[in-house]
């Protein structure tokens, strides 16, 4: 049986780029978590009914790391939790990245989309990592990724690393790539799909939609695929790029 898990926040910090990081203590969650999956956190402020889906950044030894951006009332409440507070959450949920594809892997992350790619990078052998951010101030986790594989950074305004997009840096080296794993804003994922198709490379991309139940029952968070609308929370969030239809 699955459970609604209770997780104690054992560490909390605000990153220089503005996001909030929690380390959550729960043996079951850490043991079951796979790269690309998410947790669905109850917002217990007496005001917001719906849970907030937050991607899993890393998990090991009873501890699960999540990093999220403050976007609205729900994440604002979440950011206000302190060390020692208990969160109620469902998870790990969803279908994560397929680790058994093999070959030379490229990891492409954009903005806050880099967080769910960290645990993936740890599990892959020598991935090449391409990270894109709006500007220098938004660059996050570069050193942690660099410890796992050759890492290149791009910024939209050129204030740090290369000027441009992560996918453009990746395309220059695409002849060394067998599989792309990507997470980031929709325009980036659309570009990843286009690049992958142009060069005949397989790509797995993590999709995002406003969510309801988190377990496939309410049909709110669907995305368009070649086999019809599919649930991001249950059949995703990770899909093969070739299946996804972008508007």
């Amino acid at each position, binding site marked *: 049986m699955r*459970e609604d898990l209770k997780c104690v926040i054992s560490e909390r910090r605000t990153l220089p780029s503005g996001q909030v990081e929690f380390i959550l203590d729960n043996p079951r969650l850490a043991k079951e978590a796979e790269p690309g999956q998410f947790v669905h956190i109850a917002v217990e402020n007496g005001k917001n009914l*719906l849970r907030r889906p937050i991607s899993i950044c890393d998990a090991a030894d009873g501890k699960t790391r999540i990093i999220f951006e403050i976007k609205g009332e729900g994440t604002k409440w979440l950011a206000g939790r302190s060390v020692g507070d208990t969160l109620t959450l469902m998870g790990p949920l969803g279908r994560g990245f397929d680790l058994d594809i093999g070959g030379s892997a490229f990891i492409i992350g954009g903005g806050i989309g880099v967080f769910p790619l960290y645990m993936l990078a740890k599990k892959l052998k020598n991935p090449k990592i391409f990270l894109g951010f709006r500007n220098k101030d938004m660059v996050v986790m570069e050193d942690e990724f660099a410890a796992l594989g050759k890492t290149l950074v791009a910024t939209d305004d050129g204030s740090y690393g290369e000027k441009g997009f992560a996918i453009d840096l990746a395309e220059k080296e695409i002849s060394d790539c067998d599989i792309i794993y990507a997470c980031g804003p929709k325009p980036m994922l659309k570009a990843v799909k286009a690049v992958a198709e142009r060069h005949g490379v397989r790509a797995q991309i993590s999709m995002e939609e406003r969510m309801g139940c988190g377990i496939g*029952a309410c049909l709110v968070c669907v995305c368009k695929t070649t086999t*019809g*609308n599919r649930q991001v929370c249950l059949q995703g969030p990770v899909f093969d790029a070739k299946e996804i239809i972008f508007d």
Partner: protein
Amino acid sequence: MNTKVNFCGIEFKNPVLTASGTFGFGLEYDEYYDISELGGISVKGLTLKPREGNPTPRVAETYGGMLNSVGLQNPGVEVFKSYYLPKLKAEKTCRVIANIAGSSVDDYAEMARSLAGVGVDLLEVNISCPNVKSGGMAFGTDAKNVEAITRAVKAEASQPVVMKLSPNVTDITEMARAAEAGGADGISLINTLMGMKIDVNTRRPVLANIKGGYSGPGVMPVAVRMVYECSKAVSIPIIGMGGIMTGDDAVEFLLAGASLVMVGTANFVDPLAAVKVKNGITDYMRRHGIDDVNDLIGAVKA
């Protein structure tokens, strides 16, 4: 203590069911608890052919509730009959209610024909979906149509027929009476209230479909009032729903005149919500020395 309720000749082990559209086909939540603990489930609204539904975003959070504009995405009645229904009947002991929708009177009749004699315990006829262009709520807001569809479904159905009413009308008792006149065995209410949410930063509606159905605890007083009014207006039994979060909420609906209740939006807040509502009702009965849940039905002192 008795929690069994006989509704239209069918015995429910307790009065707590889950509302259509909030519980998939039950199997999703069965990973969190044995859904056989519930009186029954009403499955995702079914149509003759599979439907893809509306564009996203399909959900918007509001104070005290949420809006949805799913638009009846479903795999079609044949997939329900060949996959979900046999699985539910083989593995689960809760009652299975098929929620059916269509875009013409003939559609509804054909749906009822297709589900006759297949082991569905009850038909819930959705004439109140606010998120589809043709059919849906357009039927449920016109008394003549309500009666005509009820008659057409009754002519084909092998199981009791419950008409699911829309709250988006001036007088819901008019629709309840029309369902009764058409031969309905029961009514269920309320479906969602039409609503809208605007993002003040972008000045755009949050929902891609602009408008959607409002549900959650914010709608509960409206729903309780409508159940109360309908229970005075018709003699067929009622399934009450709209914002139930706790056992005491469910008791309000029973007191207002509902024989069964459905838990909907609360399932998204807490995957165990429906079973907690069930336990909350028995807690209430214990606290108030009630031996039979049937003694609560329509027992409001008003």
